[in-house]
């Protein structure tokens, strides 16, 4: 701004400098008050809890590595699940947009069924009900399958919308160049649709890291499971659950940071301004 003003008139008008200084002051004071608000609220809560609940620092120090070890399991489940969920979602979206009634029917049934039942029911169904049909799956793969299936269904709709958001002219131009339908989809439509859906996929990935806590009920030793395993027998659930909660929070903050960076990069590549 200052550069423009300077080049346009030769010298920066005093009023411009004054406005800029005022804007800077306002920004700084906003940020200060923002941070202060967080600090006051969190400090008050911590102070209150420290005075009402007996927290044993020794106990936390002893079990912290065990609980934090669950973060890696949580991350592993989430990353594997989102990977398979995206593959399912692309297939599902192509199915939902397909002119083939069988393919379309399968994809629509999948979406309807998975979105129409609770995730926890799906997890328990795979783990507890499928063995009755002779299908026995370990807890960890069960968790990945359930989460991937569940999020795959939601992401199917995201990808479908993303594909439909690519202007029809792109399809026409690709066809007019002589591309086969498969090439049109892979080289022209999907790359553009991917850019459109990245924010939504990022959101779902972050949501999934939290939903992965549900697989603790089938014995996957992830973050929540370990917090409970450490806290329950010793009567220290308060400490261990607080630790788990803080871990989830930190995890989502870190992931949000990467998501924001990825989105900025994609936006830059898209507009290239």
């Amino acid at each position, binding site marked *: 701004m200052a550069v423009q003003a300077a080049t346009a008139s030769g010298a920066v008008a005093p009023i411009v400098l004054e406005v800029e200084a005022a804007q800077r002051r306002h920004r700084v004071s906003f940020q200060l008050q923002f941070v202060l608000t967080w600090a006051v609220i969190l400090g008050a809560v911590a102070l209150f809890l420290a005075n009402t609940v007996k927290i044993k620092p020794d106990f936390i120090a002893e079990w912290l590595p065990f609980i934090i070890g669950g973060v890696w399991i949580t991350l592993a489940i989430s990353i594997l699940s989102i990977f398979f969920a995206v593959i399912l979602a692309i297939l599902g979206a192509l199915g939902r947009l397909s002119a083939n009634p069988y393919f379309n029917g399968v994809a629509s049934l999948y979406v309807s069924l998975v979105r129409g039942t609770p995730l926890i029911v799906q997890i328990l169904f795979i783990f507890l009900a499928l063995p009755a049909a002779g299908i026995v799956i370990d807890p960890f793969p069960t968790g990945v399958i359930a989460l991937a299936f569940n999020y795959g269904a939601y992401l199917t709709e995201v990808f479908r919308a993303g594909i439909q958001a690519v*202007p029809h*002219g792109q399809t026409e131009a690709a066809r*007019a160049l*002589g591309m086969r339908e498969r090439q049109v989809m892979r080289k022209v439509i999907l*790359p553009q649709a991917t850019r459109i859906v990245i924010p939504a996929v990022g959101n779902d990935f972050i949501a999934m890291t939290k939903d992965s806590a549900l697989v603790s009920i089938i014995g996957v030793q992830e973050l929540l499971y370990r917090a409970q395993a450490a806290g329950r027998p010793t009567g220290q659930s308060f400490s261990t659950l607080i630790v788990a909660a803080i871990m989830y929070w930190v995890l989502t903050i870190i992931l949000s940071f990467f998501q924001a960076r990825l989105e900025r990069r994609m936006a830059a590549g898209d507009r*290239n301004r």
Partner: protein
Amino acid sequence: MSAATAAPVAVHDPYARPGALTPAGAPPIVSVANLEKYYHRNHVLRGCSLDVYPRETVCLIGRSGSGKSTLLRCINFLEEPTVGTIEVDGVKVDADPLRARRDGSDREKIRRIRTTAQMVFQEFNLFPHMRVIDNLIEAPVRVKGVSRDQAIATAEKYLAKVGLSEKRDEYPNRLSGGQKQRVAIARALTMEPKVLLFDEPTSALDPTLVGEVLNVMKELAHEGATMIVVTHEMAFAREAADLVYFIEEGVFVEAGPPEQVIEAPRDPRTQAFLSRLLQRT
């Protein structure tokens, strides 16, 4: 009005006149026979026949909704004609509105027609996720199986031709409308097609940018490219076209060289259209 009762174009018989630059007796490179198109129950094309000979530039003019774009889009099967036959460079495909016979061989034929007859769109339709050079080489490499190096060499040649060599590595969104359309023309040329189809190539452009695109097109026309151009630019048609077809309500009303159709139209409908167009400018 059905195809049978549609008045034939009496003023000028396009079949009798091979292009000015074509040896007499040469076969047409694009042949549209008795084409009809319905959108649902709306009869958009009511029996259009058109032969285009190599090195000819043909302009299709008419008011919006007259069917001229639909006709052009039927030639490369972006629209499925309801009745009629399209033949491009010896590849012949009949209309198949029920898509009953759209088997592998028919689809291959349509792809061959599309590679032979490249289209330039009103809205440019460049691929925004690819650099200019990648926009140009994508189809030659993937569709025609040209080697990457050779495709790049061809692409650079045509980028130079449209005067945009320095934009080689830019993304389309960095370009002005006129530059985008020139890249789109270069993209079509990089396929080394035998026919170019232009669908109102300057209609989406800022008036100040129309000239640069028309200049490229005029140059192509004068170099002997075979072009079918749907346009409202009468000055371009007058200068570059060998033949002008005036279309109204899905039939050709008048056809002939521009001196006749544009300068001295005989049909009252052509006269009305042109006078309205001239009043506007």
